């Protein structure tokens, strides 16, 4: 009986759980890889640039897949909602091209890591 209740609850929770669309999942994974590459201190500058370029193209495709995914707005979870609310940080390739910036500069700007901000941080820590 207890097992039956557990199974029922499990099934209910499976059906009620908001769906996490595969397209946004793939985009998030590629975006994470791009950011990891951008922040990797062990990579040489030219290797890093070539990897970023490859990932940028890959991310462009993934972003387009998310934008054109009609199913994404059906029962969205909070990650999906947040991704759509924060276009500048979620759709990095589109947003950086819109602002005519390099993808790394755009991302650093968006999270507040600008040169002036960093200098200000130095001043405070002094």
């Amino acid at each position, binding site marked *: 009986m207890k097992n039956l209740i557990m199974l029922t609850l499990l099934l209910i929770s499976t059906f009620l759980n908001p769906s996490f669309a595969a397209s946004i999942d793939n985009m998030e994974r590629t975006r994470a890889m791009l950011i990891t590459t951008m922040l990797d201190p062990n990579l040489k500058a030219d290797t890093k640039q070539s990897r970023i*370029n490859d990932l*940028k*193209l*890959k991310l*462009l*495709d993934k*972003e*387009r*897949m998310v*934008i054109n995914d009609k199913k*994404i*707005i*059906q*029962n*969205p979870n909070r990650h*999906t*909602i947040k991704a*759509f*609310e924060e*276009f500048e940080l979620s*759709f990095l*390739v*589109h947003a950086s*091209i*819109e602002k005519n910036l390099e993808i790394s500069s755009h991302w650093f700007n968006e999270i507040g890591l600008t040169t002036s901000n960093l200098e200000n941080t130095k001043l405070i820590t002094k």
Partner: protein
Amino acid sequence: MKIKSNKIIVFLILTILFFQNSKITYAISIEGEWKPQIVEKMYVLPPKQLNRVLENDFKSSSLAATLNKKDIKIRDRQSKINKLNEAILSFDGEEKIELQHQIIIEKKDYIKDMHQLLKMKKKELNTKKQFFKKIENKLIVKNTLGKSNNSIENERNKIIERTTQLDEKIFDNILISNSKKSKYLNAYSKNKRAIDSLRKAIKKHPMSQLTSQLMPDNKIQSIKNLVENIETEVSIIELKEELLNYMAKLVALDAMQLAENLSDSNEFINNQSIYNDPNDVIEFFIN
């Protein structure tokens, strides 16, 4: 003659009993059936078009076929009653009684057929009403769920608009234009142009403006209006049924009058034949 008039009296008594109550109470079985065979994808159509699809679906049902047959039968009966009414003026005596009897039979059958027709019409309207009620409920549920998704839908629309404007810029981007294009990128650039031209064509289409005006709330309202119209039609049919009840009462009264007249004349003949009169045999005794 006597046997025939007795038969007529029996029939008339049955007719009187048949229509004795003001309400027609006999059980009527409707042969035709109608279960709308409309696929769920059609539900997105504007209510007016959906109603048209439903009408076409009904036309191909067995209920519609039975309804049409019944309608033709009623028309034939109507003309037969008219002819009998005209003919009765030129006859007298037994023939007139026979024609009166015929008229009552035809009227009785007319009422029965008309009642069946109204029942079938009512069945059609009720099926239609149920169908629209089902769609209305679905729209209400969709609307309720949709309201919570509205914000993300708005965000998505804004993003689509923003990124569509960026497409040219992306194609001009040196890195992207010089790099080896992915399978998706190739397919995207090819399909995107086709999709855009189709979208423009859809936007220009006169029927597209009609459907875009139909927001979920408006659609629910339109369906409610359709249901209201159906209910009005049902009320009209109920009025017609009431009318039919009065007709039935009148036929019963006609039958009663004819039965009364026939039994009066029969009674006179019967009284004469049952009781012998001594006056008839006086001659036997005189001689």
